[in-house]
């Protein structure tokens, strides 16, 4: 089997620096990432359609599908693990067209997603679900950028250091879930 790579990346990402990554490779992510889930995406699209400028640049950006717990006084952030990515599939192409370079979440996504990632040159990264307390320790800064009225679905900018991720879907159609299942399955259904 091909050796798994471990890479350190810093946002914003360029297509060139992520093109060689394969499903199963480990990524330590640094820099700014943007937290957005269901309603956040809806609002972002509404604003873009109205011609408003977003409070961050989508070019080379990374979106983290998550909705953290409230922050305790004196802390940076609460628990912040990934939510199920497939709910955001319907928004993906719109943001890829505008420069989004990677998304972070958990779970398999719809078939079309892999084609979109190939077409636009982007990655789908997997964070460990149900490890929100642990993942919060890699966040060094948090700022609410917009939609504070949405509570846990507000748009956040996080600064992360060595945020631990796995490449789930790469740009060549590689798929961590499918490859893993094929290797370990020994039953027919």
């Amino acid at each position, binding site marked *: 089997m091909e050796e*798994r790579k471990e890479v350190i990346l810093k946002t914003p990402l360029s297509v060139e620096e992520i093109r060689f990554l394969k499903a*199963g490779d*480990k990524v330590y992510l640094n820099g700014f990432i943007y937290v957005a889930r269901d309603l956040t995406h809806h609002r972002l699209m509404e604003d873009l359609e109205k011609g408003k400028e977003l409070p961050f640049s989508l070019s080379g950006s990374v979106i983290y599908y*998550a*909705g*953290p*717990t*409230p*922050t*305790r006084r004196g*802390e940076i952030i*609460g*628990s*912040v*693990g990934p*939510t*199920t990515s*497939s709910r955001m599939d319907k928004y993906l192409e719109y943001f890829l067209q505008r420069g989004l370079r990677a998304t972070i979440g*958990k*779970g*398999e996504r719809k078939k079309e997603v892999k084609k979109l990632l190939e077409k636009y040159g982007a990655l789908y990264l*997997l964070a*460990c*679900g*149900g*490890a*929100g*307390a*642990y*993942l*919060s*320790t890699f966040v060094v800064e948090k700022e609410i950028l917009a939609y504070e009225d949405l*509570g*846990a679905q507000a748009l956040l900018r996080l600064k992360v250091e060595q945020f*631990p991720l*796995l490449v789930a879907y790469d740009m060549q159609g590689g798929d*961590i*879930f499918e*490859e*893993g*299942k*094929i*290797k*370990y*399955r*020994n*039953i027919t*259904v």
Partner: protein
Amino acid sequence: MKELEFQDIVQQVEKALQELNIISPQLLREKMLEALATEDNDLAREMLSQVMENYIVAEERNLPLCQDTGMVMAKVEKGEEVKVKGGSLRQALDEAIRRAYSNNYFRKSVISDPFFGKNTGDNTPGVYFFELQEGDSLRIDLLVKGGGCDNISSLGILEPGSEPEEVERFILQELDKKGGQACPPLVVGVGIGGNAPYALYLASRALSRPLGEFNPDPRYRELEEKWREDINRLGIGPQGVGGRVTCLEVRIETYPCHIASFPVGLVCNCHVFRQKTLKW
């Protein structure tokens, strides 16, 4: 008649909710360690290691184990000779949730109406199942789980007279399609019999029991073990990255059923199994 104090119930439920969201039970930690020893896939081991790191960080920093602190479910078995002084059980449960979620920086994820509602702001109400019984005892099984694993729930309407193999096939097919999205390794609840909605309730009720509490009927106990092993042969693995541990436990609950029906409810819980049982 046995009288229970409203405030006593509120306080005990509040404390239980606070703890179960932050501290994972010893038996779960042991199961995860066992899973780590079973897995030879690096990726699966990586996920399990993070899960175990998470137990430590959550407890040390007093943070919820998962950002999705759920919609609280309570299965309540109330003896007919039990009376609550100073309010209803429903009010007590709501009040306990309100306090636990407001005072501990847990996420409030409940909206007051699916179409027209707003966030209730305190994670109330919970989902309650009341079961009346004889006697003077009260038992509350609390279960907190996120939306991700609830979303893979499924109802199978099988042919009357179905065999265990057919029920198993339904479960394997459903989990094969969606299991990876629900944060495996999973605790899998299977309800068989009753009518269609009751089968789903049975599955959900099965999850509300503590870890390691299996079906007392040895025939079902054997099926629970076999289905767990077969689910693990699907290869889904921790977080879906491939591996040998997809399921920690299967729990089966059954009920008499109509001669023309064979409903099977499937409800799952993610690896962050947050459960507590309170008894009076």
